[in-house]
């Protein structure tokens, strides 16, 4: 939303360069000079009402406390409380565990699949591309409910299949360790195909001449992969990594539906904790403070990733 608006504004600025016009007798509202503003006005208005206003309002809210419906300023109390809140650290910890384990696995899988689907050896490419991309456009709630049924400890298909080969029932959603694993599996299922498509686009931009030259020098396929494909994909890696980081930090739907943050907060994420505080405990000020700390973390992480990746250019 914000991105598209920024583009819209900048394009307007360039198009409204001094435009010599003959003076007219009647004053018109719609002139070539004003038309662009009128066209973008609805978008700007919506942006202001539904994005800018809530952003400012929740920032102010994060310095307030609501008691019996009346809000009063408590300044940094919410933030101070946040930095002493064990559950917040637990949520942050969970989110980072997912970030550090799941995101690399997912991106690695995405590259492998993209490379395979880009090679000439595989038939029915478009079928596989669609099949892998499908999860990204499935309704999240529906998908999560299906997984909930599959992973049920007592009646789920997964445990039934495992029981056929003599494995004891696993508490996929009720055991603190396995629930984290389940959550990561579901996210990987959902987002690998999405990243794969981005990698696929990147792969097709690598000049074929590089591979031809390597071929002539007798480089193996594996060497080509590590010395041509990976380095050439570097900007794509950066892009997908930043996107996945932001996505993981905002993870909400899957843990909300699958486990509701349980058992014992093993799958509590920062946004889920924010939701609980705001809409279940009515602690709106505190929830806003969590939101702003999260914004800060995302900003810092994205900046770091850009910086690290940009340095050895």
């Amino acid at each position, binding site marked *: 939303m914000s991105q598209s608006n920024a583009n819209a504004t900048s394009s307007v600025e360039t198009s409204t360069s001094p435009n010599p016009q003959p003076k007219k007798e009647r004053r018109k509202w719609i002139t070539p000079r004003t038309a662009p503003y009128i066209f973008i006005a609805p978008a700007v208005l919506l942006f202001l009402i539904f994005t800018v206003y809530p952003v400012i309002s929740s920032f102010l809210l994060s310095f307030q406390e609501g008691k019996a419906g009346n809000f009063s300023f408590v300044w940094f109390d919410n933030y101070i409380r946040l930095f002493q809140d064990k559950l917040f650290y637990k949520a942050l910890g969970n989110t980072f565990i997912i970030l550090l384990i799941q995101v690399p696995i997912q991106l690695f899988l995405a590259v492998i699949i993209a490379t395979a689907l880009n090679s000439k050896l595989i038939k029915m490419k478009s079928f596989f591309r669609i099949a892998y991309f499908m999860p990204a456009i499935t309704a999240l709630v529906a998908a999560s409910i299906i997984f909930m049924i599959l992973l049920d400890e007592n009646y789920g298909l997964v445990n039934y299949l495992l029981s056929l080969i003599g494995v004891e029932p696993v508490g996929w959603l009720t055991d*603190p360790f396995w629930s984290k694993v389940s959550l990561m599996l579901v996210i990987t299922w959902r987002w690998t195909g999405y990243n794969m498509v981005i990698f696929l686009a990147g792969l097709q931009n690598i000049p074929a001449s590089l591979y031809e030259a390597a071929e002539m020098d007798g480089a193996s396929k594996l060497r080509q992969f590590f010395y041509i494909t990976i380095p050439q994909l570097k900007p794509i890696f950066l892009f997908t990594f930043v996107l996945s980081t932001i996505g993981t930090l905002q993870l909400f739907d899957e843990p909300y539906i699958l486990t509701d943050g349980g*058992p*014992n907060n093993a799958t509590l994420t920062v946004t889920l904790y924010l939701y609980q505080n705001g809409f279940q405990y009515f602690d709106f000020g505190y929830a806003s403070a969590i939101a702003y700390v999260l914004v800060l973390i995302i900003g810092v992480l994205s900046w770091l990733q850009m910086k690290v990746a940009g340095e050895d250019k």
Partner: protein
Amino acid sequence: MKKWLSLALTLGLSVGVMAACSDESSSENSGGEGGEPSGEITVWGWNVAAQSMEMAVEGFQEEYPDVDVKVEDIGRLDVYDKLTVGLASGGNGLPDVVLVESDRLANYMSEFPDSLTNLSERGYDDHSDKFGEYKNSVTQNADGEYLAAPWDIGPAAVFYRTDIFEEAGVNAEEIETWDDYIEAGKTIKEKTGVKMGPIDIAADDALYRMMMNQQGAYYFDEEGNIDLTSDESKRTFETIKEMHEADLVLNNDGWNGVVSATVNGEVATVPFGVWYSGTITDQAPDLDGKWGVFQLPAFEEGGNRAANLGGSDLAIPSSSDNQDAAYAFVEYFTTEEDPQMTALKERGIFPSLESAYENEYFKQEVEYFSNQQIYETFANVVPDIPVANYTSDYSRALKLVSDAQASILLDGQSVDEALQNAADTLANDTDREINE
């Protein structure tokens, strides 16, 4: 160009501000002033409760022919989401009457005290002797004024499988204490392989709440101080832990898991509120005659066996512009016997209106439950239900105690430590004192 931009900015901001502030003052005008209530009112509820209200409309209109009642069946959690957002924004888009569960009510009453109509000012106090102490306590605010009207109540008991008990040679009537219950469970496990009861360990502490309530304890004491580290609380979790260690507990994921276990015969008993009878008869019609009910076991012989789990009440948001009609409906629906009996017969919803218990229907033997007079059993529980102080931090406490339950049963943490942690976190989040 700058002028345009600033104009757009001011316009946008002022529209946003206006949207946030409007509709704040619409609570004053109530329709049909003076005369008979008239017009249309909207009622929010869910599931069988909404159906019960729908069934009451006809009787209501015999007394108030000019009022149209529109009952909307919204999902339970959707009602809360919409109610929270609506109240927080000063009453936008709220109905004239809304159903709220008793244990969630305190939260709304304390967060939005002026957004709920004071029913005492309209004369609801006249009905106060028609309800038990427990039900009055949850619908009144600190000053003893009704902010909601008491409707259904959830007296608790143990539903059990008569055939499984028989097979194991256990007599349900001899179970008087939780120790007896555990012993019976061990025998049943040994003889039939069936576990004693289901618990949704990670997400719901229902058994803990029933056990606490029967001891006259809860998350908070009467002053609202945190009471999680009390002797009653520790004793309760020690008992649940003992059941779990004896492998008598089936860990279920969510409500559906509990229902499946009940229907599939994987558990011999289910301690729950009376409303579960509706679920059992509905979901397991082929187990006709194989279920029975006995009172919750006590902690010591002769101890209190009464507890409540669930139940709900009706509130009128102050934003309603037809307060007269809304109040008329709430009064009719909660204090007349007819709608209570219809709700019980048709949908298994148990009235809190005590005069209804005189009805012949309560003496009736229920075929599905081995011809027991189960309604009388539950009605007898009601007067002994101890008062519980749910407070505005009920949801937070429920979450933290469920977490403590998971860490005791799944991670092997000690009861004392888990409860102390929960109490500390709760104190940190709510500015409440912990009882020593």
